Every structure is written in C-alpha cells, then in structure tokens.
C-alpha cells in the first residue's frame, strides 16, 4: 500500500472519480492540499476571486455537463463564503463537492485546535447541515478514500445535491499507508427500488384514457437524462408539455406541443392549458410555490400523477392521486411501454387543436415583437444567432424571467439558472463553470446590472484563466424586479432600487482585460453578439433598456395560474 499524506490521498481519490477541475481559493488551513496540487498533473485548479463564485462555478460545471463540480476553500471565512453557493446547489439539486480546510484536531499548539475558537475557525459542518445532502470530516488519513467515494455516491445518486468534506489540517499532512476503494459502503443510504408495476399500470390506464392529458416536467428530468422519453411520451399521447422553470430545456421549446414554462411569470399558454387538462403527469418537480402559485386551484380539473425519486416530494406541496417513487427515466420507459399497449388509435385531435388555438392566442413568442430594444426583441435575436447547443445562464430578477419567457431552450442542460434560491450573482460564475465543462459551446450569461455587480470580480478569473464567455447586461439602471413589485404592489413607492449609471460596464470590462461593447440598437446588438461569439476573451455587452419595463404577464401573489395580469 502506498504511503502518502492526507492531501495526496484526497487528490488521488478525486482523480479516481474523474475530477479534472477544482474551482477554489486557498488559505492557511488548506495549504497542504494546494502543495499536493503543485505536483499534480491531472487536476486543473481555477482560481476564483470569491469563494461563493467558486461554488457557483462548480455548479455551472455540473449542470452543463452532468458531472460533479468541485470547489475548494480555506477554513473560516473561505468556508463561510461558500455557503450561498452550497445553498444554491442544494435548492436546485446540483451535484457538487465542496472541500474546506479546517483547524487541526490536535497538534503542537493546543490552542490551535478545533473547538478553541482558533484563528479562522468556523463550524462549517454545523453551518452547512441544513444545506448539504451530507457532510463529512475525516479524523484520520485512512478514512479519506472511502469518504470521497461515498461523498460522490451521495452527491450523484437519488436526488443529487451538494456534499461537503471538511479537512482538518493535521489530517491533510499526516502520512499513512492508504488503501483506495471505488466501492461505496453506506448501509443507511438506500435508493428507490424499481417502480411498482401496479402503479405503472394504473398511471398508464389514466393517461391512455385521458381526453386532455398534459405533462409537467421539472429539473429532475434533466438530472435523470429523461428528455427523450418525455418527447416520446408527448408524441404518443399527443399531450402538450409545460416545464417548470427548473425543467426548462428538458423538452424542446420549438416543439409544436411545447407550452414553455408554467408559473408566476410563466407562459400564459401553459398557465391556461394546465387548468383545462384532465390528467396531469408531473415528473421530477417538487411543484414549488412559484410553479403552482395557488395550491387550491392548481390544475383543478386534473387527476394528478407524480413521479419523483424523492419520496418526500410526494404530497409535500400538491396532493396527488397517484405517486410513483422512481428515477424519471426508468419509470418513463416503463410507462411508455405500458401506454402503447393500452392506447386506442385516433384520439387526441380535439385536444391538440385546442392547444394550438390557445398557443396562437396567448403565447408571447407568437405575438409580434415590439420594435426597439425590448427584452423580447433582444432575446429573439439572440436565439437566432446562438446555436442550439449554446448555453444560457441567467442572473436573478427580470432578466431571468424574460429569459424564461423569450429565450427558447432547445436542449437539456442549455439553460442554467438559480431557480430555488434565486441568487443574484449566480449567472456569471455559472457561465464560467459551464464553459470549462463544455469548452466548445458558446456560453451567454443573460444578466441584470444589479446581479452582475455581485460577481463582477470573476471577470479577472475568466480573463486570466482563458475562459471566454459572454455577459449580456440588460441594463435598466435599477434593481428591476423589486422595482416592478414596488411599482405594481406598493403603488410606486420606490425605495432603494436605483443603481444609477455606475459602473460603466464597458470600462469595467476593459479594466479587467475583457472586451466591453455598448450597443444602441438591435443591429448593433446582433453585431456585438457575433463579435463576442468569435472572441477569445470574455465580452461584456452593455444593453441599455428602459428602467420601467415590466415582466408581463404575471400572476399576483395568492392567485391561480390562469389569473395572469398585464398586457404583453
């Protein structure tokens, strides 16, 4: 058995999990791992400029590729800076591994020890208990290989999520004869059994005999790689498909039966049709408040079937008639077979006609784009210029909701946004992570000015590490989304929403060595995108838009999905 330090054992274990990239920032308590990285040829370290962004970068990497993203930070402030990033990954079920340095468990100086409030000590296990799927702290070098194997197993299986490994400094430096293992051994962690056949058959019966079936697809479908099965199911049942915000991309939005996203700022066609469906199949969605808006009226007329890998999601928000606890892909395959056996030919015509009619009437994409630099016109142009494999990330706020409404997603893993936590500043680092995972794809962060400022320092990371992405700042000089709420729900009592004209995003980009372009018309915007797409360096496109542009329509708090308001 090879003799090595804990730090070396960690890196070797990560390599065995095919880790090729770590996003991080170093500090005293994690120095031994960085010292081991000095000799490591296989793992690329990308120096983030803030640990929160390192975690978002790892998440962008994970969501663009389906692999695990890894981030690393030192103890104390490094670890606590990761917290928002970890919470974001937890809410959106993204598989990331966070590595943190920690004060030693014992040592020469007994005041520099866990529990003594030593310099840069923070109880990161305690702090992250509520926002990790699991967290670990090895006490000996020998534990490390098994711990890493188990951590990856937990992060990637079942409902994925973040796992943190906190590494006391003495455990990083101690030397031991280490044995590696690729076998996980967590007896208390069980994954769902194959789906219950009677339930599959009941679901098949309901769907096959439905007159107005509809599919509602969440992020779980992307995680389970079940997009093809959704397309097949839609074709088989002639059923329209809406996604949740997190499910965007799981079903091609160019498909005639696509309704776009449901929800508070959803596509009006989706919000209307869901109220008319008689059987609703919800797959891989927790049916969150933003998706359902009002539980009492949500899909009122429909029998509801829910497929989820997480048993705790069944009946948590919406009471369903039939639940299948399973991986989405496995159960969708079984359902497809079961339904084809039961289905009578020649049905579905009236329903698809109705869907088409509602889409034509309500879908914002089918309405003529207003002239000028409106979000819709800009995003429609972006769609035309960007290949189907191009990856969109977004910030949070109006920019995000406009992206959901107007930027059609055609493939899974091409729309990456902070759905559950709604973290401003997520989009740009996520774009960097996505670009690292998929260097051949063009990556665009659709940003608001307020959000971009929260992570703007990562321009330094993208420039020095040669990770060219595009940031398109929909610059309204306000914190637009909250301004919209103050405008519509607080009678224009604007407070603390003005961002002014600071910074000058072109100069800001240039100061970091990136490219900055300001555009004054749609034509200039198209030119800028084309320039940015071939640029070897990150490009920030400053796109001034009106500061009182609303995201419309929207469902006011407490109302049901079809009660959308606002002209659009």
């Amino acid at each position, binding site marked *: 058995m090879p003799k090595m330090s804990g730090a070396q054992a960690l890196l070797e274990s990560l390599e065995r999990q095919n880790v090729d990239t770590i996003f991080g920032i170093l500090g005293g308590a994690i120095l031994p791992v960085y010292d081991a990285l000095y000799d490591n040829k296989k793992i690329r370290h990308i120096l983030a400029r803030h640990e929160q962004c390192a975690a978002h970068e790892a998440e962008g990497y994970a969501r663009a590729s389906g692999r695990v993203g890894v981030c690393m930070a030192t103890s104390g402030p490094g670890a606590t800076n990761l917290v928002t990033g970890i919470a974001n990954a937890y809410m959106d079920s993204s598989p990331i591994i966070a590595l943190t340095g920690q004060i030693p468990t014992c040592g020469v100086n007994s005041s520099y020890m866990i529990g003594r409030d030593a310099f840069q000590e923070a109880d990161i*296990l305690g702090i992250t208990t*509520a926002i990790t799927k699991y967290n670990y702290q090895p006490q000996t070098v020998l534990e490390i290989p098994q711990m890493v194997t188990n951590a990856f197993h937990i992060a990637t299986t079942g409902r994925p999520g973040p796992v943190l490994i906190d590494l006391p400094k003495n455990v990083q430096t101690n030397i031991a004869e280490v044995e590696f293992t690729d076998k996980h051994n*967590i*007896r208390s962690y069980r994954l769902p059994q194959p789906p219950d056949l009677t339930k599959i058959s009941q679901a098949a019966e309901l769907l096959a005999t439905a007159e107005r079936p509809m599919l509602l697809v969440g992020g779980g479908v992307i995680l389970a790689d079940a997009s093809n099965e959704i397309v097949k199911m839609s074709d088989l049942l002639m059923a329209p498909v809406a996604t949740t915000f997190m499910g965007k991309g799981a079903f091609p939005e160019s498909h005639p039966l696509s309704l776009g996203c449901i929800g508070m700022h959803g596509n009006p066609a989706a919000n209307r049709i869901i109220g008319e469906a008689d059987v609703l199949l919800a797959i891989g969605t927790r049916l969150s408040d933003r998706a359902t808006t009002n539980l009492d009226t949500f899909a009122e007329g429909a029998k509801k079937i829910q497929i989820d890998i997480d048993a*705790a999601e069944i009946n*948590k928000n919406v009471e369903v008639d039939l639940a299948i606890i399973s991986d989405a892909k496995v159960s969708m395959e079984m359902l497809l077979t079961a339904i084809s056996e039961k289905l009578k030919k020649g049905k579905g015509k009236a329903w698809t006609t109705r869907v088409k009619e509602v889409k034509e009437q309500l879908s914002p994409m089918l309405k003529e784009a207003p002239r000028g630099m409106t979000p819709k016109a800009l995003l429609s142009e972006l769609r035309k210029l960007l290949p189907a494999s191009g990856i969109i990330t977004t910030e949070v706020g109006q920019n995000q909701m406009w992206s959901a409404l107007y930027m059609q997603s055609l493939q899974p893993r091409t729309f990456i946004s902070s759905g559950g936590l709604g973290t401003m500043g997520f989009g740009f680092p996520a774009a960097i992570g996505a670009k690292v995972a998929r260097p051949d794809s063009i990556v665009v962060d659709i940003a608001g000015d307020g959000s971009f400022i929260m992570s703007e320092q990562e321009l330094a990371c993208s420039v020095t590490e040669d990770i060219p992405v595009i940031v398109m700042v929909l610059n309204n000089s306000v914190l637009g989304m909250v301004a919209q709420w103050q405008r519509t729900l607080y009678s224009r009592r604007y407070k603390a929403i003005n961002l002014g004209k600071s910074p000058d995003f072109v100069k800001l980009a240039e100061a970091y060595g990136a490219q900055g372009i300001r555009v004054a018309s749609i034509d200039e915007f198209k030119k800028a995108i084309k320039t940015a797409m071939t640029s070897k360096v990150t490009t920030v496109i400053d796109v001034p838009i009106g500061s009182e542009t609303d995201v419309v329509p929207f469902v006011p708090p407490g109302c049901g999905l079809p009660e959308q308001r606002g002209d659009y």
Partner: protein
Amino acid sequence: MESGKTKIISVLVENKPGVLHSIANLFRRRNFNIESITVGATQQQDIARMTITVNADEKTLDQVVKQVAKQIDVLKVEELESGNFVMREIALIKVEVTDSKTRSDVINFVKVFRSRIIDISPDSLTVEITGGPDKINAFLNLMKTFGVLELARTGITALARGAKSIKIDD
C-alpha cells in the same frame, strides 16, 4: 398544527457524531414540532434509537416520516401505531416538604402511584416516577399542590409490542 395529535416515531440511526444535530436541525428547519426526543443505545452497538414525540396532523406526520427517512444516517423510521406499542418516561420530582403532615402525604401518594423516593433532605423529597405521560402528569399535578422545587423528565422512549424486532445487517 393546532389540529395535530401527539405521535411517536421510532428511528434507528447510525451511532455516530453529528446525527442528533442533523435530526434536530431538520425539525427546526421544516418547522416540525418536537415534544420530546430521546436517544440511546440499542442491542447493536453501532446503532442508536431515537424516540421522537411530535405534535402533528396526518399530512405533517407523513412529511416528518419521509424527511427523517431521507437523512443519510437514518436506517429505519417507524410510526408507532396507537395501542401497538409500549412506552415509558421517567420523571424526577423534587417536592418541598416543610412539615411532617406534608411529608406523610407525599409518601402516601408515592405508594399509590408505585413510584419511589430516591433522595431525602430535611426540607425536600425527590421522587422517581416511571410510566406513560398521563400517569406522570397526574402525579406531577398532585405534587404541585405541595410545591415542586425542581423537575427533570426524560421524554418518552418506546418499543413496538410483540416479538418482532428490527435487526440491521452490516
């Protein structure tokens, strides 16, 4: 959760550091109402049993069971069905006794309730009582008429009735 009822769930967990923290954290984070929680050894050294008393309606209880089951270190969760389990709690009650009349009254009640006196001082008696919460509450209410100086209750621990046992394989 006003319409809720007291329910007992029995949870087998890995006996290692951090588990109690993660379960307690889960209850706080999900806004579940714990009435009591007891943790202790089982016949298997590496497994601990938590007995959790919660106040919840059916829907919340369903969530409690599922969310607890989802915790990585949890091996098994069981809701103990009413009538089909045995439960006990211990209370230590220090009662103020300033005169001999009170003293003999307390001693009489102790006999009736089949509890025990485990400490005596000139001005107090400490009583140990074991039983279900109803019995303990009844006794406690009587003692309050004399003056309770201090009280310590363990919370409920419980097991399902019958020969059935849960054994976790390695």
